[in-house]
């Protein structure tokens, strides 16, 4: 899968590397700012109140 993505990236090695890093950064941003904040509200270990 990752090999396929790499093969289909355009341009010479430097361009491929840049695009690949940008894609990794985009995925990380999506995880850290959207997916994880959403997921943690559904998980119980942040409950600290007694009620």
């Amino acid at each position: 899968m990752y090999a396929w993505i790499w093969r289909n990236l355009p341009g010479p090695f430097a361009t491929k590397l840049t695009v690949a890093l940008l894609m990794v950064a985009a995925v990380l941003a999506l995880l850290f700012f959207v997916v994880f904040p959403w997921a943690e509200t559904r998980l119980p270990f942040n409950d600290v109140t007694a009620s």
Partner: protein
Amino acid sequence: MNSGADDDTVVLPVVRDGRQPQPHPRPRGRHAHRKPSRRAARSAAPALPGLRRPGEEDPEATDVITAVRAAPADPVRTALGVTGELLITMGVVVLLFVAYEVYVTDWLSAAKQDDATAALDRNWSDGEITAADPGNQRTEKFRPGDGEGFAKLYVPAFGSDFVFTVLEGTTDRILEIGPGHYKDTAFPGEPGNFSVAGHRVGKGAPFNDLDLLRSCDALVVETRESWVIYRVLPMPDEVAGWATGRGTDPRCAGVNPLGGRYAKVPGREIVLPSQSGVIAPVPGHPELSFDAVPPEEQAALITLTTCHPRFSAAKRMVLHGVFAKEYPKDPANPDARPPELAEG
């Protein structure tokens, strides 16, 4: 395709020690007879049947590789490969989530806590309320809106830099900024139970180390008008010999096991999440109306709650402290600090 590796095998021995590799090096050094060095092994390798130097290509193997490359993609092989990559990816995502919970939320919360503290400092220095307005005492002096900071909590036992702005309310959004005050519980210094919840893991983890606090450790709450000193109540196993044991510590002056209605309030307890009685005015007695308690028997307590065990929400760790002292702030000397803050 293996040109890099070929270069290595050819060039390295020459460049590194300036000598030609010896075809059959004699063992050197005290380990040589047991375990030949890597280079010696490599140099000797061609003499052994069936072995090649690394990088040298086996003509048959090359043929096989070429054959595999040329063959049309095997769908089973491809599916397995993709499945494997996805599984590894999911594992990495889970690890990233752990890193997010434990570290990244700390950074995000630290920024929010700084903002809340700055807002509180501005609020205090604004001087909307003149100090010690008699008509403004006790019942009227705290009116924070939801999510608004109204006090600072210091725990000297956690270090002189341990201070968190306490906000009104205990929703998730508020607790990720800092410790949150249970609405409708008492405010600092008031009779009743000043109850605060805080995270134990991530989000600044203000209450990470509640398990380390000992009886009589100071819990210092700074408000606009005063410094309120609470001290952790005796632990259950200390109550029996308190007067001759732990109670003789100078810090414990004035701290005694509570009696009467408060007899079952320990310094620390582990309860179920449903046991909301721990934040009742008389902890453990949520059914008791505080107004029915004679004022001279009302205690001013502090209660801190967090999750327990760490990384779990199965139970709650609850810490109870009792009011020890209050220092009104002196407008002439606003930077004065109570001596309790220096306790290590």
